[in-house]
């Protein structure tokens, strides 16, 4: 089964006039300048650009990890730029899955427990949490590695566990920051294929930051940021 980019009911992510300034050591750093962006439901977007162009900052804003200095961000109908810290945490738990370059698994927990982590914030029973984590691990092809700790897995396997953790709550949005930056080409292609599969077969909207043009080729479309501005 293949899902097309849905165009009904407006974009999943709607960004209007977003700016982001930081203050570091008394110095004001302007990272994003008046970003306007729509990401339709079911899209797979690759955000590209040179270092310091604001890719990760924009990704953090879309994922609700940070708030814009000005402008509005609406995801699935919710104005997340106005949410307080606690509400934003709850929103992330329910709506967003995260995948990072260095996997960021908890080393003391097994793959199964790592995948279960986001489900701890739900009302699901322990049995149901285990069942859903097992399904997510099966989806990324790691059902036989459930009891393994991260240090017992290869880089590619770790990233697949991280993807399982990201999708276990069935989020509307998958946010990936350089997901293949620490992997060799073959493993990177496997991981990107997995993201493509989630996008095409399950309709998961994916926003991915990458430096790698080959990785970006797996996305439906590519956006380029330069000095905090989206290139036309």
């Amino acid at each position, binding site marked *: 089964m293949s899902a097309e980019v849905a165009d009904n009911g407006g974009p999943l992510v709607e960004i209007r006039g977003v700016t982001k300034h930081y203050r570091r050591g008394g110095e004001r750093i302007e990272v994003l300048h008046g970003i306007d962006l729509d990401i339709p439901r079911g899209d797979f977007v690759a955000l590209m650009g040179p270092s310091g162009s604001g890719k990760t900052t924009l990704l953090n804003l879309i994922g609700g990890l940070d708030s814009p200095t000005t402008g509005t961000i609406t995801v699935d109908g919710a104005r997340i730029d106005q949410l307080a810290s606690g509400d934003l945490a709850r929103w992330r738990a329910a709506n967003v899955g995260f995948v990072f370059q260095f996997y960021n698994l908890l080393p003391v*927990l097994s793959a199964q427990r790592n995948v279960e982590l986001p489900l*701890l914030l739900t009302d699901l029973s322990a049995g149901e949490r285990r069942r859903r984590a097992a399904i997510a691990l099966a989806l990324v092809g790691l059902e036989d590695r459930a009891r393994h700790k991260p240090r017992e897995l290869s880089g590619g396997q770790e990233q697949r566990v991280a993807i399982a953790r990201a999708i276990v709550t069935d989020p509307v949005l998958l946010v990936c920051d350089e997901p293949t930056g620490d992997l060799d080409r073959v493993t990177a292609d496997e991981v990107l294929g997995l993201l493509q599969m989630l996008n095409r077969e399950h309709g998961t909207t994916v926003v991915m930051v990458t430096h790698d043009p080959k990785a970006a080729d797996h996305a439906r479309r590519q956006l380029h940021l330069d000095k905090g501005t989206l290139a036309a």
Partner: protein
Amino acid sequence: MRFVPLILAGLFRKKTRTLLTLASVMVAFMLFGLLQAVTAAFESGADAADAKRLLTTARYSIIELLPLSYRARIETVPGVVGVAHAEWFGARYQNESNAFPVFVVDPARYLDMYREFDITPEQRAAFERTRTGAVAGRRLVDRYGWRLGQKLPIASEIHPKADGDMNWEFDLVGILDADDPAVRGNTDMVLINVALFDETRQFGKGRTGWYIIRIADSSQAKTISAAVDRLFANSPDETKTQPEKEFAVGFAKQIGDIGALISRILAAVFFTILILTGNTMAQSIRERIPELAILKTLGFSDARVTALVLGEAGLLLLLGGGAGMGAALAMLPGLNQTTGGRFPPLYVTESTWMIAVLIAVALGLAVGLPPAWRAHRLRIVDALAGHR
């Protein structure tokens, strides 16, 4: 409960470090349990004191004797419902290291006064009618292997018999015991019948060491004490009357303020634990800043991450504290065996358990709050970017 595995995983992330810290907390609480048991043993006299009992001694020295005739006069004081008397015998059994308290008493009056001591009616009756009778505490009987009906040869360092001989002999006719450990400590003594003793002793006939007075209303203790002392004011044998608890506390303090000494030792121990555990927790959290940032990324709120860190600190202290108190509890029977009854029974009181829990919670908060606050303030983007 769903977060407990996560707390445990964080706590035992570095097993050796956590186990060593747990061991130090355990030793601290074990010391606490044992030293509090010593304090409880020293204070057992005061704890077992009855608010309705007063003690009357000679005004200027506890070793001066008072006339036995005072008993009838004390009984006339309003509010007094019973009077008993006792005298220090100054005993030595077999050799000088076998010293234990021996009191010369009127059996019926004394046992009526101390109803918390258990003795069978038959043994009590035997003690009352046997002029050479003696009763002994259960732990003394066990320590020396005495048997009912046997002769007890006890030398006195104070009281010679009329012929100058310091060696006395009594018949063991009863055993005193008590369920309450605080009271049981007070049964580590031998009581001897005053009847034959007073006839036979060389000096001090018709006199006794102190009076024990039972009153009807404990709130009248001060008034009745003053009334008793007024009876004998300006006589050759003036008296000092005070509640039994006051007397017991004053007597214990003659040895030294054990409670204060132990409190200071424990304060030093727990301060060390505070520094040690606090450092361990701070280090543990510092190492896990990226992991805490990931939890926040996944949707764990600031408050929940704070609670997880506090939970780790609390669990560390409660596990260590519980193990320490358990170890103390396990060691006490052996220690009591070792002292052979020469020391009041050591035991962990309910209040010691409550204080232990309070200390563990307080230390958990003191140790956990700084890293928890740091975790609370942690900004995800900074932590993920490596800025802490």
